[in-house]
């Protein structure tokens, strides 16, 4: 337990230093609170709006988790298809790359036209933003299988499917999870984009839309919401790192893990 505190110490110390510098800057330079609220103001807003932020956060968290799940599933299936078929690889890869340049508001209206104001179009937006790193890392993982491995499996009479199931699939799992962690880094901002480009019918619109609404007149609350997203991204990242250690304990520790 103490070693865990030791490992977290540098990040906590750096955060405290930055917060102190921020507080001093606002105080000494006399920055107005609607331009940049001081940390103590953000903390107060966080405290006073805890209920509102929590309910909006629940909406956003659901979007991020499900959207990332969709991106992982879709990205993995696409990666396997690309791996299995050179034709698909040539056909799909360039389009997948290009899809990353599509500004989401362009297709936002279409998504709402297809799927309405609910959760699903937001998940599609998040998945569109997140799937690509999963595809790239998984395809690389699938290709990294030792070329002699399929030979060995053939002498053991493995079918193509069995070779995939016993050799390629597990080999690609750590890579896919690494891709998921990259995807997650953009997933939270993806949820923000999803909320601000597709309208919602729910009681709480999610943190992203709440922040956009607050940013001009309730600046401290917008910052408080941002702090929640900030912390959420960190928690998700390390949760995925933990999942990777559980699901693929044989794989080497990638950088950035909480050791």
């Amino acid at each position, binding site marked *: 337990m103490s070693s865990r505190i030791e490992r977290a110490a540098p990040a906590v110390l750096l955060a405290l230093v930055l917060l102190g510098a921020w507080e001093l800057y606002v105080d000494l330079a006399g920055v107005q609170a609607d331009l940049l609220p001081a940390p103590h103001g953000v903390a107060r807003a966080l405290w006073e709006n805890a209920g509102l932020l929590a309910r909006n956060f629940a909406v956003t968290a659901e979007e991020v988790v499900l959207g990332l799940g969709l991106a992982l599933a879709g990205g993995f299936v696409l990666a396997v298809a690309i791996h299995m078929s050179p034709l698909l690889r040539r056909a799909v890869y360039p389009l997948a790359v290009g899809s990353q340049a599509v500004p989401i508001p362009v297709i936002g209206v279409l998504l709402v036209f297809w799927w309405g104001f609910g959760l699903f179009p937001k998940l599609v937006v998040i998945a569109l933003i997140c799937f690509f790193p999963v595809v790239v890392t998984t395809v690389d993982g699938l290709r990294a299988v*030792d070329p*002699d*491995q399929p*030979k*060995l*499996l*053939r*002498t*053991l*009479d*493995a079918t193509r499917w*069995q070779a995939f199931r*016993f*050799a390629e699939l*597990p*080999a690609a*799992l750590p890579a896919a999870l690494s891709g998921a962690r990259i995807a997650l880094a953009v997933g939270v901002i993806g949820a923000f984009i999803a909320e601000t480009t597709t309208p919602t019918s729910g009681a709480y619109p999610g943190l992203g839309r709440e922040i956009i609404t607050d940013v001009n007149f309730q600046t401290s609350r917008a910052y408080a919401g941002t702090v929640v997203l900030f912390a959420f991204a960190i928690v998700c990242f390390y949760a995925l790192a933990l999942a990777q250690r559980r699901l*693929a304990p*044989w794989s080497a520790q990638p950088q950035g893990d909480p050791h």
Partner: protein
Amino acid sequence: MATELQSRTQPSPSRAASCGGILIENVSRTYARAGSRVEALDGVSLRASHGEVLAVVGPSGCGKTTLLELLCRLQPPDRGTIRCPPAALMPQRDLLLPWLSAVDNAALALRIAGVARAPARDRATALFAEVGLAGFEHVRPGELSGGMRQRVAFVRTLLSGKPVLCLDEPFGALDAITRSEMQEWLERTLAREARTVVLVTHDVEEAIVLADRVAVLSPRPGRVTAQLDVHIDRPRTRTDSAVIALREEALGALEAGRSR
């Protein structure tokens, strides 16, 4: 040697029983690599009857691995005929799957053949005791020593149930002590399991200690330059005078093939 001690552990007698012998006649194999043609084997003829251990020695790059891949039907010969019952390959590198435990790696062939996980594990576990791996069933390959990994790979090959075992430098990566332990162990195992074995090695002594016949290949393209029958009582050791005499003969044949 081992025919009177019938296989205790082995499945698929239907495949194994009929004719475990190997016949290789006038086989040649050329393949293209980086734009040039590499002649790996040229007119190779070899045979091994059921239950025999045939060792193939030769300098590196003489097509020994190609020969095993031909026997395992991983590639076809360009010329010549090969008659060989189904063969399992133990590759030079063990190629254990890092995410499976040792026992699951050993049971891989059974799982592929459709055996459920629990009985497949039971059968592999039974062999683990015999090869000195008891207690290491659930350890992943990354945590095993080189000798242990080789034994796991060998059990995997054995459990494929194929009548022919193709062993490609099975002890090449091991230190001298582990290596001779493994040789003794292989000897004992083969005495119990009536399998035809093709053992590829560059270690002449190893070939003579383990094999019924030693075929010497020349440098690329591989041709058989000598075949030595090993009529020495088992168990043999490297220091037996008969082994040493035969080793000199084999080394002479290797040298002759090289300078040809």
